[in-house]
């Protein structure tokens, strides 16, 4: 397998007033050609900082990184020709039209007038922007604006596209629409590496997920693998009373398929690696013990369960206390995430 991105023990430390902050503490990852890989974690986990190091925007303090087969530390100039990067802010010119933005971008990558014009038309079509390509960007809606940002990132046909929080601030329709466009890019052979703090985005869009917390990788795999690795499906059984629940727990404990069984009142909560398949057998077992189940629930594990398991915190709560959110637009040598 050829890797478009490799990182090994990447480190970044920012000097700060209250002492230095280790934003990235040894991140290692690999992204294969043609994959969509999501870098998932709470705000302040080091996602943006890692991405900014991989895209030559921030000096790498420690570790190694290659992008498109080039050493990011030694050959930043060559790396820039081969990558596209869409920051959280996008950075399109508000006072220019979408087409003007794209043409300038293409020309800055060295394309001639005619090749750029053709390429811009193609990209405008690809991202459904043709209808308003000649309107000023400041009149664009949020979704249109974000699609233009992505278009700016791919106008020069990069080998790998970096997207930093691509769907932040978009409504559900526009998010789903953007995801479709990102998948279409992958179909055209572009490798996509994106950061997100949305569980559903990582789940729905990414072939593989790297979960990061406090500057370290805590888990990685396909969304399916990650969820299975946690504890399987959650099964919740409601019995008549706590006495019945206790007896049910005793009957179920020791079953090979069952993990992490707990009792709370009349409720028995347990995990099984393939809950749907296990459920009939478990119910028969309880029936044989003379116990009646009043109701039952079966839920597939979410990525939040994965995060909870790895870090002891819920992803929805993590990172909020740090108060960090949007670090792009910070001074060049201090921006952290």
């Amino acid at each position: 397998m050829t890797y478009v991105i490799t990182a090994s023990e990447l480190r970044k430390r920012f000097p700060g007033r209250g002492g230095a902050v280790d934003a990235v503490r040894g991140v290692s990852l690999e992204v294969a050609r043609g994959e969509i890989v999501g870098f998932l974690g709470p705000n302040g986990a080091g996602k943006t900082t890692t991405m900014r190091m991989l895209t030559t925007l921030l000096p790498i303090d420690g570790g190694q990184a290659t992008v498109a087969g080039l050493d990011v530390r030694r050959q930043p100039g060559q790396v820039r020709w081969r990558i596209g990067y869409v920051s959280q802010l996008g950075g399109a010119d508000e006072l220019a039209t979408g087409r003007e933005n794209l043409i300038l971008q293409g020309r800055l990558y060295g394309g001639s007038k005619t090749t750029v014009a053709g390429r811009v038309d193609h990209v405008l079509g690809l991202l459904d922007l043709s209808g308003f390509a000649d309107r000023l960007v400041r009149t664009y809606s949020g979704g249109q604006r974000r699609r233009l940002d992505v278009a700016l990132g791919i106008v020069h046909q990069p080998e790998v596209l970096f997207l930093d929080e691509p769907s932040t601030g978009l409504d559900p329709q526009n998010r789903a629409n953007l995801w479709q466009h990102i998948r279409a890019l992958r179909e055209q052979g572009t490798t996509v590496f994106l950061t997100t703090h949305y569980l559903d985005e990582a789940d729905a869009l990414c072939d593989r997920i790297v979960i990061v917390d406090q500057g370290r990788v805590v888990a990685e795999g396909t969304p399916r693998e990650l969820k299975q690795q946690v504890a399987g499906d959650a099964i919740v059984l409601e019995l008549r009373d706590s006495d019945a629940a206790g007896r049910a727990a005793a009957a179920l404990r020791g079953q090979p398929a069952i993990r992490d069984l707990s009792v709370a009142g009349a409720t028995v909560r347990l995990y099984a690696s393939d809950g749907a398949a296990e459920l009939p057998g478990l119910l028969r077992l309880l029936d044989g013990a003379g116990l009646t189940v009043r109701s039952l629930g079966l839920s597939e594990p979410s990525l939040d369960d994965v995060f909870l398991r790895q870090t002891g915190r819920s992803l929805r709560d993590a990172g909020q206390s740090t108060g960090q959110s949007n670090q792009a637009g910070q001074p060049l040598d201090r921006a952290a995430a």
Partner: protein
Amino acid sequence: MKTATDAGLLLRRYLIQLLRNPAFVVIGFATPLLYLALFTPLLRHLAGAQGLPSGNVLNLFLPGILALLAYASGAGPGFSTVFELRAGVIERFRVTPVSRLAILAGPILASMLLMFLFDLVLVLAGWGFGFHVHVLGLLLLALLLALQMATMAAFSITVALRSGEINGVAAIINGLNLPVLLLGGVLLPISLGPAWLRVLAHFNPLYYTVAAARALAAGPLTGTAVWQAFAVLVPLCAIVLYWATSVVRRAVA
């Protein structure tokens, strides 16, 4: 070669932005014209006074205003850079293979073109009121003003990139303005002042620009003030541009 092409592309972008947001252009025009209209009348009776040359007071005053304009035009790109940084535009450029020097040259050259436009209007207006126009001297002065402007612009952009917020840039630029302008002898020649003031002024780059501007506007192209100004500004401009480029490049140490 790539640097020149990139700088040209970015210059075009900044010019288009200026034209689409003409408020800046209008304000830029108003400032020097207001000086000319509202300040020159105060000087009418100063010509020939102690320490001042005789003749039309504009010959003394207008070159100072041109130097002031070069300094002030250099502060503008610093402020616009903060907005571009906050909007992610600078980062979008930095991640492309565009020449790092061109990232600076784009806004600097655009502001410089605008400055020369103002300069032309000022000189023509001054000419109408009796300013003595010496063409060769003014052409050489244009080069000096370009150096002064580029130095200040590279400085203000670097301050903006380092500080990243409008307050930081405003504090530094505004903090510099008054001492630099007063010690530059922009409005009244430093030669009127006591010795300590004249010594202090020599630490101010703008002082040399102003002195050379007055000399060049008067005609002689080879006065002491002229070569002194170039001797100060050429290396200074090179040093500041080098520093600015290294800050843009800082992404990869």
